[in-house]
């Protein structure tokens, strides 16, 4: 009787393990997955409504069970070829339904295939703005930019927002990459000319971009990590002309990225449609005089708040 009971238990555990492996799409999550760390996902150039976009979304949903990311950033080209209500359904709401049901919030940037009015769409969380910022956790701030149209107003806004931010982690995302080894597009030099002089002194650590339909992580440029994630829907097979810039590139299948911030380190794992890990890295936060000053100011705020609290 006892033996039978043990056999049933083993059977149950085996079934659970198999189910977990199936749901995880056999993805081996290499990220530390620490309690209390900040976890997010990155998708770019998604909006095809095609089978591969759905498969990527499914893979991400499987990973989310093990690696419970709270938000996802979208790097533009959220809708290809039409923006009728049915397109929003087919190219966004249906593929990411499972993730959204689990409470994952999506934050979108605009690509060159996106109508600016997407900023009003509630599930993109842009609050009616082409460019915006949000702080999901103390010390971590995201900046979503509209790289299609970097006019004077936006430029001034970026400068002000970066200057005023006291967050240790400043992560910027937009559509057109400042650095790229792409055969088709390559880097957007005009954008780099105006944005890099802001990103470097004001302590930006990470820049995520899409546009190129592949995955590429650059070696740090002026201390900043640039990652292209533009193949979560579209793919340009063989699109990378590997150069001295490339730390890791993948242009053979669709992909997405998972990130985890724990203390001074951002852990990144890029995963293909078939669940293969195509990149894994542990990357440090940038230390700039501005970042140090910002951190000191933030600490001062905390101290003041505590003092105010104790004096009450």
């Amino acid at each position, binding site marked *: 009787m006892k033996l039978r009971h043990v056999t049933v238990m083993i059977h149950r555990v085996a079934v659970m393990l198999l189910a977990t492996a199936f749901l995880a799409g056999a993805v081996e999550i290499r990220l530390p997955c620490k309690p209390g760390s900040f976890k997010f996902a990155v998708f770019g150039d998604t909006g095809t409504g095609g089978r591969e976009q759905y498969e990527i979304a499914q893979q991400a949903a499987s990973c989310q069970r093990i690696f419970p990311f709270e938000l996802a950033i979208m790097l533009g080209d959220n809708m290809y070829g039409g923006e009728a209500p049915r397109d929003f359904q087919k190219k966004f709401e249906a593929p990411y339904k499972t993730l959204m049901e689990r409470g994952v919030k999506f934050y979108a940037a605009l690509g060159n295939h*996106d109508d600016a009015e997407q900023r009003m769409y509630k599930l993109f969380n842009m609050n009616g703005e082409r460019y915006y910022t949000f702080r999901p956790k103390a010390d971590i701030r995201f900046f979503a930019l509209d790289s299609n*149209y*970097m006019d004077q107003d936006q*430029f001034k806004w970026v400068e002000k927002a970066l200057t005023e931010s006291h967050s240790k982690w400043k992560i910027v995302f937009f559509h*057109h990459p400042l650095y790229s080894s792409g055969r*088709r597009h390559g880097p957007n030099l005009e954008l780099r*000319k105006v944005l890099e002089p802001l990103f470097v002194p004001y302590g930006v650590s990470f820049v995520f971009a899409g546009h190129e339909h592949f995955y590429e992580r650059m070696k740090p440029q002026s201390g900043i990590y640039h990652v292209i994630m533009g193949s979560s829907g579209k793919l340009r097979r063989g699109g990378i002309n590997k150069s001295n810039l490339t730390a890791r590139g993948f242009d053979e299948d669709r992909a997405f990225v998972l990130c985890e911030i724990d203390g001074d380190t951002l852990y990144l794992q890029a995963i293909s449609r078939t669940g293969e890990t195509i990149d894994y890295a542990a990357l440090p936060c940038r230390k700039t005089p501005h970042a140090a000053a910002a951190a000191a100011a933030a600490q001062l705020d905390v101290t003041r708040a505590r003092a105010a609290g104790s004096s009450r």
Partner: protein
Amino acid sequence: MRKFLITAPALLLVAGCAINRQASRSRTIGPLEQFDGRVKEYVELHRRLQSKVPELKEKTEPAKILAHEQALGRLIKASRPDARQGDLFKPAVQPYFERVLKSEFTGAGGKSAKATVKDGNPRYDEQSAHPGLKVAVNATYPKSAPLSTVPPTLLFKLPKLPQELEYRFVGRNLVLLDTEANLIVDYLPEVVPQ
């Protein structure tokens, strides 16, 4: 008397110079001011008509976004049925735009700026080219067509636009696009150098 004879010509000279300077300044910035004025008039019309369509909330449904855009577009079209090319880009201001665009697209960095403008340009875009996209005043910009990237280096030189309007490129044409109504408001034909 002698004092008057010395100071009068000097005063006349100063006044003459001032008038001359003012005249030359109005020759230089006059067309640009005129352009700004036309833009302002258009945006006033846009805002007036916007108040006649149901207000769009910051977080809304795609169907409402589309309905709002189409309703606003219809009202604007109906309000300027005789609008034609050059209404905002008056002939007097065209040489200014041509000069700025020429300086951006030729010389150092010109090649890269031209490549940027071709990127997403509906006439050349590899993924969803719209070679037959008609550029016409009051035409709706097709939702399926991509938008050309406009180099920030160029945007910093061109006259600033209110948030309702954007400069875009379709082929070699510089288009003034109403982003909320998704309408082509005016355009400058074939201004990007070959």
